[in-house]
């Protein structure tokens, strides 16, 4: 059996800049893959290609054996690929619960009352149930990240792509998010996690892939990556090579 997600030689250019340079990867169902790399190394771009937001210039990706490159984001969401955004994108001027109803009601066979019930359960699980009827615009940054989590939980996705979910999140909330991610993964969901927070990455991920200038420079278990001189060099080497211990 082939891997659940297979990407072959993805290339994405923006004008003269090659944001993804021949990126290939394979992920088995149920894996939790960390994706790291310095700013501008192409992490978000990879995620955008895998979720249908960018068209790859060349290369193909398959999910459960079906081609996903060139498909619309909404179609991919229907196939079980869900994502969050680095800059949180919540629906500000509808209620928190309604934010969850959007993905819930996309399935026309789902009835409104079941979807509402499920939405409320998820909000409770994320400990923002008390905010359900308030406008989403009034949430804090961290709560908004949780809401994004909740929205994709509504889809019961098979593959979850998380882009910097811990950015600007209070440590308490972060712990809650860790628990949710573990839970999720424990129930068989495949996850790709982009984060600058090395603690989270090493805590959570079974494998870590490192990008630099759009190329995969390392792809291994966390403990190996932690001591990989190439990775250290990528992160800190260009300015002051000696500071690498901080990782």
């Amino acid at each position: 059996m082939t891997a659940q997600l297979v990407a072959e030689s993805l290339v994405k250019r923006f004008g003269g800049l090659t944001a993804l340079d021949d990126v290939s990867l394979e992920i088995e169902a149920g894996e939790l893959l960390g994706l790291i790399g310095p700013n501008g190394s192409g992490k978000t771009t990879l995620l955008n290609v895998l979720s249908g937001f960018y068209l790859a210039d060349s290369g193909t990706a398959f999910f459960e054996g079906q081609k996903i490159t060139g498909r619309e984001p909404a179609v991919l969401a229907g196939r079980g690929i869900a994502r969050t955004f680095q800059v949180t994108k919540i629906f500000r001027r509808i209620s928190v619960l309604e934010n969850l109803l959007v993905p819930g009601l996309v399935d026309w066979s789902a009835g409104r009352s079941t979807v509402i019930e499920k939405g409320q359960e998820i909000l409770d699980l994320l400990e923002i149930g008390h905010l359900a009827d308030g406008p989403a615009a009034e949430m804090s940054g961290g709560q908004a990240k949780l809401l994004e989590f909740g929205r994709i939980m509504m889809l019961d996705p098979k593959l979850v792509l998380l882009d910097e979910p811990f950015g600007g999140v209070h440590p308490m909330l972060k712990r809650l998010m860790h628990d949710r991610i573990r839970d999720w993964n424990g129930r068989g969901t495949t996850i790709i996690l982009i984060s600058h927070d090395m603690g989270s990455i090493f805590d959570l991920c079974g494998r870590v892939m490192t990008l630099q200038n759009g190329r995969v420079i390392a792809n291994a278990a966390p403990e190996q990556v932690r001591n990989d001189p190439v990775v250290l060099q990528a992160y800190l080497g260009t300015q002051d090579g000696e500071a690498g211990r901080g990782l």
Partner: protein
Amino acid sequence: MNNQAKPIPSPAAATGLRRGILGLLVVAVFFAIPFLGLDEYWIYILTIGFYYGILASSWSLIVGYVGRISFAHAAMSGLGAYGSIFASTTFALPLYLAIPFAGVFTGLVGLAIGRLCLRLHGAYLGLTTIAFSEIVRITITAEHEITRGSLGLAAPALFESADRVQYYYSFLAVLLASLLVMWLVLRSRIGLFFAAIREDEDAAASLGVKVVRWKIFAFTFSSVIAGIAGAFYAHFIQLVAPSMMSLQEMGFILSMAVIGGFQNIFYAAMGGIVLEVLLEVLREIGEWRMAIFGAVVILVLRFAPNGLFGGFADYLASLGRRS
């Protein structure tokens, strides 16, 4: 879990109920008006006000709910008017077929424009729809052999008798019917998809909302309503000229929707009726009327984005909450 049945109706439901009752009262007043011995002239003006109510509310469906601007709405109404005239004269269709035909025709044009403008936002969409609107107006003016150009085209009357009250109730019925259809769509999950697209298109798409489909649907839907309104209008005033597609006319529709409250179809419709009546009441001050409306549009956008009716309703709701 705290999702047990709530014993007390939520404040939102209570104000919703109050607004519903208020709405029914307003409708009842409009039904009663012809019995109040009002001058025929005002019946006529109110009928035109209903026409603008349809246009203002269907315009705010795109702008207020889906968050996309359009300057082609007056042109859509005009296309409906001309479409129905051609259907009923050149093709000799009876009006009960010609008017739906006009609706379908404008719907198809709206579909085509919606399809073309899919990726455009904000100012780009504004400019493109202005261009469409002007192209339609110029074409109809230029093809004077068919359309009689700016002289305008005569339209067969909707009713044989010239009874104003008959027209009044017809237009009231069309207004209420289109509001009802829009309301049903907006309160279904489609309305939620509209809101998601308005708030964040990318997020909506990432959650499986067929953004393209719903944007085109909204544009088509609102065009159909505008087209039907235009068709009815043509058979009411019985003379249609390209000026009904002018940008001035579009500015008029925009003013009505914004001043009434473009984030709510009912407030926008009220804006249409009230502004049309005010235009007549203030006839003596001439062009100053529109200058005042322009100033009010600016003030409303800046300080009361829910419009005068929306702002008033919010105020009432806040009173209710306090007591």
